[in-house]
């Protein structure tokens, strides 16, 4: 693997290899006092975040450090980005400074792809940590890792993705990955929060959460992304919550074994009731823990092998 830019087009074998590596890393580190592996000693990983983030940036930083890579964090404020430097120049600067891997989050869809184009020649790997409304592949991988842990193989499982699909890179990455792994995806959202062209996605669409919940093995609640909304997508927060929020009563509609996921940050009381988020059915903290192992696995697959001949 050279870059990790999207789950679209990722085959089941590649995804499974990364997920298996993550499982083994988790087992290796379980109960250990010293959570440090020498595997990426001497490699340099730079995170460049042009958007706010807590869990993703911290998760990548911990992943790199537990693998003994040197991790450098760059945020858009406080760097030359604030002086007007272009993404390309920032990227080439980081490569010239010796970055083996650049992890980028950017508000523009496609930013990671452009970066990869500029950095391939330098031999620097690029990981997409979220680009606009496009993809967030490591989030989908950690969701898949969590679902595998709770449910076993994903083949033939049915997963509902609920809420603001339109603005969600998490939803896009999950649709592609879950489908590649053999799961069936159903999107549940008001028509205003579904992207145009959703009829060409490998999914079914529903507008009734109550009808879908009894039929699924997992439900993934999405955050309503107010910061990307300019206009009225639904009448009121309260009405959205009544129609598409996962309340305690709705939790009872789910089959006994079904898992509740949320990529975070959560808006308690909006898309998910507080009691649901804290219930044993929710795997939200497991998602965060698995995120570190999945990102370690991604770095392993990107950096711990011989140079690929272009």
């Amino acid at each position, binding site marked *: 693997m050279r870059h990790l830019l999207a789950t679209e087009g990722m085959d089941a074998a590649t995804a499974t290899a990364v997920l298996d590596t993550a499982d083994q890393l988790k087992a290796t580190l379980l109960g250990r006092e010293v959570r440090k592996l020498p595997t990426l000693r001497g490699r340099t990983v730079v995170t460049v975040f042009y958007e706010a983030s807590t869990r993703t940036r911290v998760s990548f930083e911990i992943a790199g450090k537990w693998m003994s890579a040197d991790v450098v964090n760059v945020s858009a404020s406080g760097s030359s980005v604030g002086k007007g430097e272009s993404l390309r120049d920032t990227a080439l600067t980081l490569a010239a400074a010796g970055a083996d891997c650049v992890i980028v989050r950017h508000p523009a869809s496609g930013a990671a792809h452009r970066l990869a184009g500029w950095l391939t020649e330098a031999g620097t790997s690029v990981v997409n940590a979220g680009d606009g409304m496009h993809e967030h592949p490591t989030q989908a991988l950690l969701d898949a890792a969590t679902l595998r842990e709770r449910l076993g193989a994903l083949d033939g499982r049915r997963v509902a993705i609920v809420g603001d699909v339109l603005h969600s890179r998490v939803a896009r990455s999950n649709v592609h990955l879950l489908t590649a792994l053999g799961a069936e995806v159903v999107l549940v959202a008001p028509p205003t929060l579904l992207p145009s062209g959703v009829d060409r996605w490998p999914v079914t669409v529903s507008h009734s959460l109550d009808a879908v919940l009894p039929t699924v093995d997992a439900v993934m609640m999405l955050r309503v992304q107010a910061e990307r909304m300019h206009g009225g997508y639904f009448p009121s927060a309260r009405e959205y919550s009544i129609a598409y929020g996962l309340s305690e009563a709705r939790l009872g509609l789910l089959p006994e074994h079904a898992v509740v996921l949320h990529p975070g940050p959560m808006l308690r009381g909006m898309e998910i009731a507080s009691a649901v988020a804290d219930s044993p059915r929710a795997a939200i903290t497991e998602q965060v823990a698995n995120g570190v192992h999945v990102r370690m696995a991604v770095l392993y697959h990107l950096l711990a*092998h011989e140079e690929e001949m272009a």
Partner: protein
Amino acid sequence: MASRPRDAAEPAGQRELLSAGDVARTVARMAHQVIERTTLGAPDSPPVVLLGIPTRGAPLAVRLAARIAEFSGVDLPTGVLDVTLYRDDLRRRPTRPLGTTQLPTGGVDDRLVILVDDVLYSGRTIRAALDALRDAGRPRAVQLAVLVDRGHRELPIRADYVGKNVPTSRSEEVHVRLVETDGHDAVLLQRKEEQA
């Protein structure tokens, strides 16, 4: 010594070093050596743990423990120690899949750890295993048991228990086959050029 008829699936250009019967006898002999060297069962004997190195060291450790239990009545805990993350050649090869690591309950602290592997060659796998072990805890001592020692060491490492010493050339490969991983038991010597 070849008691097993040649498997049609095995390509030409290879020689059987140990038959299935030889493998069983060799493991039994190693079990006796472990019992003797560690004074197993004696009141002052140290607690012993067998750790197999994947892939084929893992079933070998289990077999060794079974024979030791049979001969001495002492059940030794076994585990699996994957060393991939500690290898020094990761950047010289395509991505290696990780193996399982499963330490026995109680870990390795203050125990006599016997690492078990199928073939001892350069010694680099064992070097990695020693590093991995250091991260897993602090054993009282570490010993090494291998089914085959084929020479050509690149590091100052030797085995405490050797099933069979086989002088080889670097242009040859030693393949251990075990029922658990390959469907049958054998140790084969193969010239590298014959490899597909």
